[in-house]
Each structure stands twice: as C-alpha cells, then as structure tokens.
C-alpha cells in the first residue's frame, strides 16, 4: 500500500481545535496549508458520513476564510463583486454566490451573510482566502471597507437531522427552527456565537462562527451533550463525500478560474440581470443566452470500480470529458462521480463510460442530487 503522507509539517497552520482532533484520534493530513483531520480512529470516513446523514456530525471548518465588509456602501460593493443578488437580503439573511473574474470564470465560491445593513461577512475557501481578498480589494471602489479577519474566527459545522436538537441543548437561540440561509446571534459560555442555518452537506443544520478561544469549549460541549443523539466528529474525508452526494461543487475540482457557474450547475446563484450587474456578468449573460457548451453531471458507475478525479469520461470509446470528483457513495453504496461532459451528453440516462486506469467502466448520467437527506427531527 502507498504510505500515508507525512503529517508533521511545521509550516502548516493549526486550527484552534488541533489538540481536540489529536485527542479524539483524528488522522491529521495537510489540506490547503492546514493540519486537518481526514477521519477519526475508531470511526472512519464511512461511519462519520452515515452519522451525519442519520444523526448529527461535527465538523471543524475553522480553516475557512472570513472577510468582513463594513461601512457605508458595503452592500453596493458586495453586490458588484458577487453573482447572487445581495440587495435581496435582509439583516440576518445569507446566500451562496460566486466571486467571478471579468471574463466570467470563477475566483471562488462563497457564502454572503448580511449581519446588519452595511455589515457583511463573506466566508470563502481556505485555499483561496488570500486570492479572494486581493481580488476584492483590487476591484472595490472603497477597498478600505474590506478586512481579512480569517484569524479572528473559528467555525464549527453541526449538520444532520439531530443538529437542531443538539444545538438547543448547548446554545439555544433564535436560529433554531429557522429556514435555511439565516444567521442569528446566540449566547454561549459568556460570549456570542454567530449561528447560521447553512452548511455544505445537504443536511439541515448550522454553521457556527465563534472566537478562536471559544472553539474547544463549544466543540466538547456539543460532543458531550450529543452522546445520546448519535453525534460524531467528522473529518474532511466525509465532508467531501457528503457534498459530492449532493452534487455541490468544490473549488479546485468542479470550479476554477476558467469554469463558470452555469457549467457547474449553480445557475440558481447567478443573477447577471440584477441592477448594475456584477464583475463578470456580461460574459455570463452570453453563456446564459447560448447555454454552456459543457455541463457538470452526476454519473453512476454500473460496472465495478471507483471513479476518481481526472479519469477520462468516454462516449462511444472516445474521450469527451473528465471526472472532477469521484468516490464510492457511503449512502448509496455505489460508485459515483461528478464530471464535465458536452451539454448534448448531459441528459439523465445518457450512457457513458469512465476510463478507470485503462479499463472502460460503464456509467450513466443521473440527476442531482444523488441522495435526498432526511428532514430535521422535531425538537423534543
């Protein structure tokens, strides 16, 4: 077997939960310049994945980047930069959006939270935080209102049908029971938490932003309070398979500087016709009018094997596209993949093949998402 990569790289950053992961048996790997747990000993990716789908999972996502935009004109600035229509958000509302290049390619995907009028929290991918901040400052009319505050926030995601029950025991407050894409302040242990009804697993649940020195107390409070609710810490491995089962794009796999949101099937987060448009909206309007030449699809392998990123997708023996993410779905117990294919081969039911290390394996286009999450369990 190939040796696991070395983990004792001192140049890697540590989240405030590093010690907690080590204590819980986290298998630490390098991810985007950070030491992160890929899975936990005695649990493992599949168990962690299934615990999130059936009960509740805890994720350390403190590596994510946080950018605060605050001051007069903040809303207009954010709205010029991101693809979704931020002017539709009220205080305490949130939306998913893309940050686009002038040519329509994607700088990053992000979450936009309107905390108050003219105070926004933008949450971006760890690997892109510096690039995103530079892009924002370069393109802003008032760059002084942007601040990269990534070091001031830890983030814990609580995801799954028992998430609301669990959070109510530890940090009750207004966000519990709200629909998706809201954010509220809850009290915890003498401090404030920003509790958002967002996440990237497909499950109902929360993403909680807190001060770094609160993170460990909150993490263990959630673990301790959730024992009878089936709570499990969840590593990056299951975070990836959970989002893959939903068909959610991951920057670096399904999205990059030369891929647009229509190709990646997040057209629902694109508002190129909004008043004033946004950086990149002109070329994206053309894509919208003509339809993208290639599209992200879900593929299910009907042969044995496991598809992985970069494997060629074949149509009648000829390469027509590439797998961007692939795994053996823990929920479906089947091999599944996300892949870019020409638009005319993207309809569900289209028979294709995936070249798995030289062997063509039969596959078929299936609709997103691969799985339908359970509803949130009622509060007791």
């Amino acid at each position: 077997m190939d040796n696991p990569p070395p983990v004792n790289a001192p140049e890697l950053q540590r989240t405030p939960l590093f010690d907690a992961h080590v204590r819980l048996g986290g298998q630490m790997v390098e991810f985007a310049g950070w030491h992160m747990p890929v899975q936990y000993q005695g649990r493992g990716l599949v168990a962690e994945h299934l615990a999130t789908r059936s009960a509740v999972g805890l994720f350390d996502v403190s590596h994510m980047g946080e950018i605060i935009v605050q001051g007069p004109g903040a809303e207009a600035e954010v709205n010029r930069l991101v693809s979704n229509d931020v002017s539709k958000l009220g205080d305490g509302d949130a939306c998913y959006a893309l940050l686009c290049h002038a040519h329509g390619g994607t700088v990053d995907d992000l979450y936009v939270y309107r905390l108050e009028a003219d105070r926004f929290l933008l949450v971006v991918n760890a690997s892109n935080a510096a690039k995103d901040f530079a892009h924002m400052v370069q393109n802003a009319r008032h760059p002084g209102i942007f601040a990269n505050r990534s070091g001031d926030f830890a983030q814990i995601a609580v995801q799954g049908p028992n998430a609301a029950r669990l959070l109510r025991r530890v940090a009750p407050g207004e966000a519990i029971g709200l629909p998706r894409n809201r954010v509220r302040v809850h009290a915890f242990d003498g401090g404030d938490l920003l509790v958002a009804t967002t996440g990237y697993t497909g499950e109902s649940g929360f993403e909680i932003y807190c001060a770094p020195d609160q993170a460990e107390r909150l993490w263990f409070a959630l673990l301790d309070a959730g024992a009878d609710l089936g709570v499990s810490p969840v590593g990056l491995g299951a975070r990836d398979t959970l989002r893959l089962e939903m068909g959610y794009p991951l920057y670096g796999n399904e999205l990059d500087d030369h891929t647009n949101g229509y190709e990646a099937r997040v057209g629902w987060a694109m508002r190129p016709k909004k008043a004033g448009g946004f950086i990149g909206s002109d070329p994206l309007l053309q894509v919208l009018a003509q339809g993208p030449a290639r599209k992200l699809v879900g593929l299910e392998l009907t042969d044995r094997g496991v598809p992985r990123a970069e494997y060629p997708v074949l149509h009648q023996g000829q390469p027509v596209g590439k797998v961007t993410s692939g795994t053996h779905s823990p929920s479906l117990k089947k091999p599944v993949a996300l892949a870019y294919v020409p638009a005319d081969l993207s309809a569900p039911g289209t028979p294709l093949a995936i070249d798995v290390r030289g062997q063509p394996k039969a596959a078929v286009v299936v609709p997103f998402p691969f799985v339908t999450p359970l509803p949130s369990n009622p509060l007791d």
Partner: protein
Amino acid sequence: MAIPSNLRYTHDHEWARDEGDGTCTVGVTDFAQENLGGVVYVELPAVGTAVKAGARFGTVESTKSVSELYAPVAGRVVAVNEALQGEPELVNSDAFGQGWMVRIQVEAADALAGLMDGTGYEAHVAAAAH
C-alpha cells in the same frame, strides 16, 4: 493495532506469511486498513500472473482514496482471494486473515528473509506516525 510476530512486512504495509510449501500469502496490514478506511473495491491479478518484488500487483480502493499494492517478493500468483470481490470490507475486519489478497509461489527460497519482522515493522509504523 495488531502486528503478528509470525509474519514478514514491507515498508509499504503489506504482510507476507510463509506457508512452508514454497508459497506465501500476502495482504495489507492493520495499520494499512485503518489508514485506508472502508475498503470498497480490490483489484487483484489473475492466477498465473508473474509478479516482481516491489512492483505493483493490484489496487485497493476505499471511499477515501485509491492505493496501489506492491508485491513483497518475486514469484507467480497461485491463488487470489475471490471473496474480496463480494466482500471487500474483509480487508478492514480481518486484515491478517480473511482479508488476505494473493498467494505467491516464491521465486527465491530466501526472499522473505529480506523483509522486516514484526519488531522492525512496529518501529517503521511508529516512525510513519510521527
């Protein structure tokens, strides 16, 4: 984590057991299966395939990753564990037993002596973990 003392080990976390009849049975270690996570697919060579020491002879796939299998010794494959086609999770539940992968007719009688013993492998794993 189990490291049976009657087996020989490679740096790539395969084990080999001398069957005393010129063949050895090969699998991956407990350390390997724990790092892989849930094994979902094992690709093994056909019976009769010649293998070279240190060369790839198969692939083990988990939900998390794909990993190559390297032959501990040179020889010819005389049996493969067909049960892994239907139950690849045997690699996780019984890495040193029902999770075995291939049996190799060893080319050089003393080939296994060149591999690590349990004590050596334990030190190798301890080094890999730090």
